[in-house]
């Protein structure tokens, strides 16, 4: 029997994607040790990018793993955090917060994103379950999420315009590690991304909710028969999705200082690629994939220029899905393969 989420394989042996993560980190250390300053700097910024991709990829892989649902709203949820934070900040609603206004703005952004994600749940799984039973059997949630993609994107575009906006964060501190300059924000972001994903792993592995989620991933009807309240557990997937996308969006906003209504498109693309690379439905796979894609992107831009990254990434996705659908690292993936 396939386990639904790669984490669940066994407590004693490390899963293959976990080994992949270790290998990636070893390679990074090697690159920093041998490659000199420039490569080291590229590697660090690649890792930061990878941490953001990783967080979004985990959001994708979670909804597919548990609900067999490719949630197209995730890139727009990512964008929503940044744009909402910028909107409340630039309109001056947060002047009471003083120097922490940017932080409050991001918190509001994440909160709005989680609320938006729950709205998606209402119209994709809630009503659907009442009318058609097991919603993970249908294409309907996918189509609804495409509708929500249009709704969110245009709801942002109408009042805020399509321009890229500056999101100023007042602190600018750096730390020096062995001659490499790393921004505190970068470092904090990596740590936060890792913490969020680790917390998710813990929830899935060791809590009652996590077990309920895993049961639904296997089969919603059986889960329901065994006493899992599917109607109450499914929203948790969407809260987690909103939280992961929101945190990734906030990290992106803080580190790059730019928000735009289209900021989610590129990240969404890379996150899907990361998920496919690591094997759909596997959390360790998404982590490994995110780091690899982030590194590959910054290094290939450094070596070849940034022109053809997107096409290469999608070509890779197509090849992997067709030739090796369980991902490069051979982790467990979802066994449903239906829609």
């Amino acid at each position, binding site marked *: 029997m396939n386990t639904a989420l790669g984490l669940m394989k066994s407590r004693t042996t490390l899963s293959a994607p976990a080994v992949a993560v270790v290998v990636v980190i070893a390679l990074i250390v090697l690159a920093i040790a041998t490659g000199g300053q420039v490569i080291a700097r590229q590697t660090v910024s690649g890792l930061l990018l990878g941490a953001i991709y990783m967080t979004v990829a985990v959001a994708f892989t979670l909804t*597919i793993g548990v609900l*067999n*649902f*490719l949630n*197209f709203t995730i890139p727009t949820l990512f964008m929503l955090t940044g744009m909402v934070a910028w909107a409340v900040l630039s309109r001056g609603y947060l002047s009471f917060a003083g120097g922490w206004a940017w932080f409050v703005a991001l918190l509001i952004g994440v909160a709005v994103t989680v609320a938006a994600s729950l709205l998606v749940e209402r*119209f*994709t799984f809630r*009503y*659907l379950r009442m009318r*058609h039973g097991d919603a993970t*059997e*249908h*294409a*309907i949630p*996918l*189509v*609804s999420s*495409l*509708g*929500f*993609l*249009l*709704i969110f*994107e*245009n*709801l942002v*575009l*109408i009042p805020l315009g399509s321009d890229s906006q500056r999101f100023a964060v007042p602190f600018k501190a750096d730390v020096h590690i062995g001659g490499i300059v790393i921004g505190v924000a970068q470092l904090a972001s990596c740590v936060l991304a890792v913490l969020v994903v680790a917390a998710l792993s813990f929830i899935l592995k060791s809590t009652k909710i996590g077990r309920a989620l895993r049961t639904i991933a296997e089969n919603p009807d059986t889960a329901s028969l065994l006493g899992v309240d599917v109607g109450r557990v499914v929203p948790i997937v969407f809260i987690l999705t909103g939280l992961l996308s929101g945190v990734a969006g906030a990290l992106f906003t803080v580190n790059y200082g730019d928000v735009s209504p289209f900021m989610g498109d590129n990240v969404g*693309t890379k996150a*899907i690629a990361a998920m*496919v690379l690591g094997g*759909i439905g596997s959390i360790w796979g998404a982590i490994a994939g995110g780091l690899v894609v982030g590194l590959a992107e910054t290094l290939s831009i450094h070596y070849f220029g940034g*022109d*053809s990254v*997107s*096409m290469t990434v*999608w*070509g890779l*996705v*197509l090849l992997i*899905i*067709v030739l090796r*659908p369980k991902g490069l690292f051979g982790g467990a993936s*979802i066994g*449903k*393969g*239906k*829609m």
Partner: protein
Amino acid sequence: MSGYLSGTLAILCINLIFAYGIFVTAAAGQINLGGAGFQAIGAYATAWLVSQTGLPIWLIIPAATLATALVGFLISFPVLRTRGVYMVLATFAFGEVVTGFLLHSTVFGGAMGMVVPQHIELWVLTVSAVVVTIAAFYLMATRLGLAMRSVNDDEDAAIVMGVNVRLVQVVAFTVGGAFTGLSGALYALNFGFVEAQYFNSLLSIYVLLFVLIGGAQTAWGPLAGSLFFTLLPELFRIGGSWRFFVFGVLIVLMMTVRPEGIVTREMVRRLSPRRWWPYRTREVYHGG
């Protein structure tokens, strides 16, 4: 006819043919989220043939259609290895690869696009749309159409009943590719210009939504979907972002209230006066 009306009619014809291209694969149970890629192949094949060869248009349009059908045929083999979410991702990735390739190729003008120094009259578009519509209706009434329906409803049952599922799926992808390529060729010749940025993932999403909102159960669906979403915004003169916002709301509401699409098999059966109508049994929706 005023320029505005003929422009709208031209877009409607192109969208309709495009929608039927996606419908044929959807009717056989495959979701193709890479429609823009197929349309781009048809459009660029036309642009290239017009600018590089001196062939007459009545040869170029079928050539571009055949070229896209061939691509559909070839790509169906790897894509059909996948199912469900994986197939959605594979077709989506295919669309992105095609657009990315065109955007970076020097032969096809890269980001500058290509000028198509030929033009077709509106009647060619209208006749093509009518022919494709009739062809789709005919296809769905044949044994092949029945086999496609059976594959969509229950693949295992279709195998048990002796349907060659793989063959049906490959044919669906090929015919779908042909229709989509035709729409691309007509797009190129109607607007006189092609650029890769137009054939983006949003276009793939829109056309799939035309089909699924119209209803993928019968050949009436794409007709209803294209008419609905091409004419409705024009009728109400909603512009820009609001148009897409309303579009999104309609999709979400449709999916909660009537996920089978505007036109369902049951509705066609009820409204049809014909006793020989092949869809006679009462049935429920089993999902895409």
